[in-house]
Structures are given as structure tokens and as C-alpha cells.
């Protein structure tokens, strides 16, 4: 038996790594991480951006303080550039989406975001650029995280090697080739981790399961902005610095590719370089989910949208019991309901719910 862990974080996103590092570095916790980072060579399933299609002003308020804090943290992870500031484009195609987008940009401006309406295009009805938005650069960030986590004392456990045991109403332990340890709190961060390790009933009560596709498309002409998010089509286009395009959304890969091509003028054609299909979880209440269900020592962390990484310092404080009042109130509103009827709060648009398989 090795030393016990205060937290085990299961998941494959950069958020998992950053969260583990903050818990260890700033809160003195003993932390292990179970999961491979999704290699940058693969089509990206999710993106880390400091703004998103967020309708709850409270979330914008949280980001106002947590984004600068996260950027400072990213500066310390590597000498290499692991993020950049970009114009982030949010577009709406349908009438309802336009209403949403108009409201979103007003709410964002209420917290200091600089937005600017983009010229009209045949590809969408309305579009705004969110200036100076931060996006992480996945490849250098993933390359830098293991050494940084190691320096913070976070133990990396090979997922194929890890067996997580959850005694009924009792402690959780992890067994791997490096030993066996008890886990104070197991954090299931992200869809893949919740699907793999979560209690099926809990996950079903909190989330819709939707098939999703992610494509990597060969180097393309420049998008109007390096990231474009069609808020009502559930489609995100993310242009890498080399011009290659990641595209993620609900539905079939072939439809997604055609939808992506529609964002380029002059009938631009896009060639496939990679393709992935996977299940995604969309919260039933329409907002972020952060908290325990029946088991106190299993925390579900999902539905954060693209800004999750930029909430990491606040999430870590909440896990360590050191939230300020605003953060505590905000995360309380994200807590899974305990038995009572789910209250829909609304945050992110839920496109194509007819595709939900559970």
C-alpha cells in the first residue's frame, strides 16, 4: 500500500492535468491522475477557449477572474508558448440562435468582453468576434503537462493498468502496477471519464448521451476567425496554427464535413485527414455539472463547455474547500440535484437532442 491520495482525477483533457497540478501545488493535496491526454495528432473532441456560448451571467463573472489566473498558471507550465490570444467567432444560423447570440454578447460585454459584429456572410445570419480570447495550443500544452505535473508531485497512473474499486458506501481505492492506494475523492472530469467510471444511473440522470463526431481536415484557407462556433448548429471549427482544421459536432462525420465546408466562401472543398466518433454527454439541466450524487466521494465534473480549463483555479479551490462566496454560490448552482426534480437552468444550447441515445 502506497500513500493514499486526497484526489484521483480521471480524464483525458488538459483540464484534468491542470486541475491535478493546482490541487497539488496550491492546496497541498496528494493527487493522482488516471488518463492519457488525447494526443494532438488526433482530431480534437473538445477545445479550451476562454469564452463560449454562455448565457448565465454568473459564468461570465466567474471567468472574469479565473481567466487571468489561468493564464498566469499556463505561463508557468512551460517556456514554450502554450496559449495564444485570438479573435473567437461565435455565429448563429437560425432565428433562435440569433436571439441567443445577441444576448450572449451583451452579457459578455457586461463583464468586460470586447465584442464586434462581423460582416455579413452567406454562411450565417449573425456573427460576433470576441476579441483577445485565449485559446490553448494543445500540442505544446500536452507535451509540457507531464513534466509540470511531475514537478508538482502528481502521480500519473497508466489507465490500462489502473483498477478503481468502489466499496459500497465505503472508500475508493486504486490498484496499479505501482501499488495500491485509497482515494479520498474520485473526480470524473469529462465525458469519457464519467462514461467509463461513473455510476450508470447517476450519469443517465444528469446527462443526455449523444453521438458526436470530430474531424481533422487538411490545411484550409483562413477562417474569418481562428475559432468559429455555430451556437445553434452545435458545430465548432478550430483552425490550428498550421491551417489544419478541427471540426467537432453532433451527428454523422459526413454531414459534419459538409457543414464545415459551408463556412468557406467560393465553394472551398475540405479534405479529410482524420475522423473520430464518440459519445458525448450533454447535461439535462443545460448547464455545468459539478458535484456528487449519492456517493459523496465521487464528483462528476462535466457540461462545462469550452471554458472548463479556464475555470480550473476556481474548481480547485472549491474542491479544497477554499472557495470565495461568489465561487461557492456559483458551484452550488452546478451541484447535481439530490433526489428532487431536475431544475433546468439553461446555459448552453442543446442542438439535435433528437439524436440522444440515452
Amino acid at each position: 500500500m502506497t500513500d493514499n491520495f486526497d484526489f484521483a482525477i480521471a480524464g483525458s483533457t488538459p483540464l484534468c492535468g491542470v486541475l491535478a497540478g493546482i490541487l497539488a501545488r496550491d492546496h497541498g493535496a496528494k493527487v493522482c491522475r488516471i488518463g492519457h491526454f488525447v494526443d494532438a495528432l488526433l482530431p480534437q473532441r473538445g477545445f479550451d477557449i476562454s469564452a463560449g456560448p454562455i448565457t448565465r451571467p454568473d459564468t461570465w463573472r466567474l471567468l472574469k477572474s479565473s481567466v487571468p489566473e489561468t493564464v498566469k498558471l499556463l505561463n508557468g507550465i512551460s517556456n514554450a508558448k502554450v496559449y495564444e490570444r485570438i479573435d473567437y467567432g461565435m455565429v448563429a444560423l437560425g432565428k433562435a440562435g440569433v436571439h441567443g447570440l445577441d444576448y450572449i454578447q451583451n452579457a459578455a460585454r457586461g463583464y468586460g468582453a470586447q465584442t464586434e459584429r462581423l460582416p455579413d456572410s452567406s454562411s450565417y445570419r449573425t456573427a460576433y468576434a470576441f476579441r483577445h480570447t485565449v485559446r490553448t495550443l494543445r500540442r505544446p500544452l500536452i507535451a509540457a503537462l507531464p513534466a509540470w505535473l511531475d514537478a508538482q508531485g502528481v502521480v500519473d497512473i497508466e489507465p490500462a493498468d489502473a483498477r478503481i474499486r468502489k466499496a459500497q458506501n465505503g472508500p475508493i481505492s486504486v490498484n496499479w502496477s505501482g501499488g495500491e492506494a485509497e482515494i479520498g475523492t474520485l473526480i470524473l472530469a469529462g465525458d469519457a471519464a464519467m462514461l467509463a467510471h461513473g455510476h450508470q444511473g447517476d450519469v443517465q440522470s444528469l446527462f443526455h448521451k449523444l453521438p458526436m463526431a470530430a474531424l481533422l481536415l487538411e490545411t484550409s484557407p483562413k477562417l474569418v476567425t481562428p475559432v468559429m462556433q455555430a451556437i445553434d448548429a452545435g458545430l465548432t471549427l478550430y483552425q490550428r496554427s498550421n491551417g489544419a482544421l478541427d471540426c467537432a459536432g453532433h451527428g454523422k462525420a459526413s454531414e459534419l464535413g459538409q457543414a464545415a465546408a459551408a463556412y468557406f466562401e467560393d465553394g472551398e472543398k475540405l479534405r479529410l485527414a482524420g475522423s473520430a466518433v464518440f459519445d458525448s454527454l450533454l447535461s439535462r439541466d443545460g448547464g455545468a455539472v459539478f458535484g456528487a450524487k449519492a456517493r459523496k466521494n465521487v464528483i462528476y465534473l462535466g457540461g462545462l463547455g469550452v471554458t472548463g480549463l479556464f475555470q480550473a483555479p476556481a474548481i480547485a479551490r472549491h474542491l479544497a474547500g477554499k472557495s470565495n462566496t461568489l465561487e461557492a454560490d456559483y458551484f452550488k448552482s452546478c451541484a447535481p440535484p439530490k433526489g428532487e426534480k431536475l431544475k433546468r437552468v439553461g446555459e448552453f444550447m442543446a442542438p439535435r437532442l433528437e439524436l440522444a441515445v440515452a
Partner: protein
Amino acid sequence: MKQPIYRLKASTDHSYTGRQLNRDRRIRFKLNGREFKAYQGDTILSALLANGIISAGQAGGSPIALSTALDLCVRYVNAPDENASALPIDRTPVLQDMDLEVFGAPANRLKSAFGSAKTSSLKIDLDQSGCVPGPLYDAPVDARLKVNLLVVGGGIAGMTAAVTAAEAGKSVMLIERREYLGGDAELFGYADGEEDPRDVVRKLKRKTKELDKIQVFTATRALDLNDRKLLAHRVEIVDGAARASLMRVSARQIILATGAGDRLPLFPGNRQPRIFGLTEAFHLATAYGIWMGDQTAIFTNTNIAYRFAGQMQNAGAKFVGIFDARVNRSSRFIDIAKAGGQKIINAARVGSVSQLQRANRLNIALEPSQSGLPTLGDFSADQLIFNDGWQPRLDLWRRAGGKIALDGTHNPNVSAENVRLVGSCGGLKGHHGVQQSAIAAVGQMMLKKQMEVSDPQIDPQFETPEGPPTTSSKLNQPGLPPVYTSNSGSLVTLSTKEKKTLLGGLFSRKPSTEIGSIADKALSFEDVFALIQQKVLPQAMLGPVLKERVVAPHLFEAGTTKIRRKYLADNYAVEVPNFVGLRFGADAQKWSYTIKDGTPPQTGVMIFPNTDASDPTLAVGIIVGDGNLALISAEFSFSDKVLVARVGALTSTITLNRSAQI
């Protein structure tokens, strides 16, 4: 300067004079405006190589060899700019008076190609152009066929499978990438007691032709295999012109006999012109008599290269040396090479290769393959033929759902449904075993018979097995050309960077291999294994990267309105989406309003209870509709209520009139 003609002389003394050629029929064709001479039976590729066009162009500032692996296409001049007009150079026969241009290279660049008659390059900017690897995949599907048994690969294994099934009364489709059947079995020779593979091939070809149940498609390349549906690209001659088409074949059972290819050794300059894999060199020499110059160097990690060198020596070729990465090895072919006076250097690998431009030659820098051995010098040669070991061609197998082991072979314990591997892609080595595996697969799939397969091998103490893949110590040394991870159109390169790590309180710099090129095209199977081998990718990523990046590079065009609307299916119908409406509570109400003062607010503007409130968390509603309605939380929803719409410093006071249906 007259261009060299890289063609072996016709002779009856050996089999390397180009059996596909009719040397009595000389023909002419044009590419990018320049005229070339060829023989009837040449492909565009073989004709270009024979005429000294050995480079496709440049990538990353370095020339790239014109080869089968690049998937380069041409089209008829003035052909409609449609994807169906793309003709692959390795499978398209040269026809009299063809007038062609490179497909996919922008016109302004094409004009400059062959600016000088001396050039040996097509001068394509491979970093920018859409020449590779896509165009094959873009043609419309113009044939949909259904068969009982589909066999992919027309070597000994594939032909044996087709003949076995046809003799049992089953109908079979056999497709082969090259223009002819036979594969590479003749390259390998045979052991005592085995039949000469030339006789085996001859018999199988005859039977394949005789049996009505077998339908053969040559010059047809299998591109993709999914759910027992094969996508194949075919070149045929229709009304005296070359024509390309895609066909989709649905098969109840599929046998993959796609063989094994040359593993690309990792050294700077490994895709320079004048460098060939052993099987490609063998294919070009036997089918088209292509041989590049007088002085050849061979780098090998196997014994078969010695056999090939011996045979080519008999055909008049000269060698500057055979460099073998292995230290202690034995083979009857090595003994024969020694007896033939070949210069053999042991424990040597290629450090780097660069072009000696003026001399039309290569400079090959050798280095010891193991540490502690003395340094080795440079060699100059007209061409370098490598054989760093064999890589089973398993792309289709993987796409069909078959599993792959970490050493790049298939996992025999996990089969793809209704798909079987036979021959060397299934790990068989001797042609006896290869044939048995094909017969067994047909028996098992179609006749429900089980059969043991034996693949007798010569004792390793007499025939040393192939060595581990080699990697130069000079990956991306400044001034050296790029290191590619495969021979494919993905053009992935490796580079080395110094990584700073903290050790014992001190920073140390340690070289670390990374992906050097942009790697944004579909990857090949070989790319992935090279990246794993170099620890650029962790082993755990093998499965995901094979699954998600070794894909058919299909093209997407902008979706139809129908597709785009489908994405909005449940959003077109509503005015206020839930993710906004719920923000003000499930019981929020919609109201008409009048403006008391200020400018008319636009949709999305937040509504506050009074002029003091500006924090968005205090908003009680928003302007919706076309700007003429307000969605208000239930707490503030009553007639004549005065509220404030605000954007920044701009405010307008509104009075609610009457509620409306949401």
C-alpha cells in the same frame, strides 16, 4: 545536356529487361508541354523515370522522389477540371500522342515546370499543392458491384485464393493494383524442395485466365474497406483513351492478399530521388527495365537484397557496395554475393543521403549500426536500394476492423468479420505457406473446412532473420534533408529538439524526437509505426491513431441546404431558445411593451428592474422577437411595470403592455 536514359538493355540472358514492354513499338507523349519517348507497355511513371524525370518536386525545401508511393496523378490537357479525370501515374499506360499535365498543381506553377530541358523534376510544390494524396478518392462512383468473394491482391496468395474458390464453383472478383498479376514472389526465390515461384506464378496466371468464375481487374487499387464494402479506383482504356473510375464492391467474404512492402529506414534524405525500396526496384526492373545508372548501393537488413544484387549483377548492373545493418549474419545469398566479388560492409546503416547535383549521383554517408564500432566513410552511387525489413500492408485490414499488434503485424487472435488475411500480409513467408494460407482461408470461409497451415522456414543459423528497424543518429541535423516516416503522400517528417529537463537541481538538455512537419494529411500505417518506434507517440496511442488518422482522404463540399437545416432541426421553430429563456426561469412570460424614453432596444438587450442595476446577473429579462417583445421573469411580469433596457451606458425605459404567448 542529354538526359540519361535509365533503362536496361534488352537481353534474353536475364529477366530484368521489362516484360511489360513491347520494345518494337516506340510511342511519344507529352507531359506539361514536354515530349517524351516511351515503349508500348510503359506506365506514365516508368516512362518518366526512364527519361530521367526522377523527382516530383520539393517538400520542405528538399526534393521528393517520383515513385509509386506518392499517388501522383496526371490528366489530359483540356480535360474538364473534374476529379474523375485524375489518372495515377503508376497505373496509367502511356498511349501514343497523349497530351497530359500534372493534376492538382496550380497552372502558374505548371508553366514553369520543365523550364529547362535539363530538369529532372516535375517541380511541384508539394507543401502547397493538392496533388497528393487525394484526387483518387474524389471521382464519382460509377459502378456498384456485388460479389460472393472479393480477393484483393494478385500475387501468389491472391491468385491461389481466387483459383481455389473458383474451382469449388464460387464466383470471385480479383483486383490487383499493378497492370499485371504475379506479385513479388519471384524476388524471394525458393528453398530446396519448393517449386520455382516463376512456375507457380505461370500456372496460377493460366488458371486465373481459364476459370470463368474469376473476374480480374488489374490497374485497380483498393482505397478503402468498410463494412464489407470496398472502394476501388480503376484505370482502363476506353475508346483509345485512359479513363479512371471508382467502383464500390459489396462482398460477402473478403480475402486480403496485399503482401508486404519495404519498411522505410529513417535517415535524413530517405525520400530523395534515386532511392528505391527493394520491391519497387524489383518491380520497375522486371516490368519496365528501369535501372538508374551504373553504380548502385544497397542498404539491407535482410538476406533477399543479396539475392537481388546477385541477379542484377548477372544482368550487368554494378554495385559500389552492400551495407548490412546486422553484425553477425549468414545466408546462402550472402555467400553467393561474396563469391561474386561484391563489397560487403557489416554493421553499417545509412546516416544520411544527399544529392551530388552536378554528378547526378547520391552521396551516402554510412555510420556504424551499433555503438563502439569504428566510423565508416561516404560512398557515392547512382542509386540506393534499401531493404530495412518488411512491413505487412495492413491498412485495409485495420479499416475493416482487424486489430494490429505493436510490432506492426496483425493480431491473429482478433479477426475482422468476414475478412481474412493471407500470404505475406498475414505473416507467412515461404510461398508454400503463402499458398496454404490462401487455400485454408477459402476452405474456412466458403467451404466450412478447417486446414492447418505450415510455413517451413530455413533454420535461422543458416538464414539469419531480418534485423530491427534502423534509425540514423542524424535525425534533422542542421543542413541535412528531412527524415520522412513513410513513403506515402502524408509527407510526415521527424525532427529532433533539445528538451530542457530538471535533473538533480540542474537543467540538462536532452535530444527529443518530435513530429517535424505539419502532419495534417491522412497518415499511412507506416507513419504511425515509425512515430511509435521513435517514441513520438506513446504505445497507448497506437490504436486511436491508427483508427482516427489512417483514413481515406475523402473530400467534403459545402453541404446542401437540407443538411444545414438538419443541423438546426429543433431550433428553427422557436423564437426564444431554451438556453436563453430558462435563464429567466421556466415560468418567464413574453410581453409587448412601449418605450417611454431612449432609443428602441435591439434583440438580446438585457432588461433591468431599475436604472441603478447594470450587472448582468441582475437582469430580469431580454428583448426578443424582432425587437418588439420582452421576455420577463415571472416576478416582474405584470401590466404597466416600468423596466430599463440597457446596453452599456445606453438605456431606454420601457413599460410592459400585455402578455403574449411564448
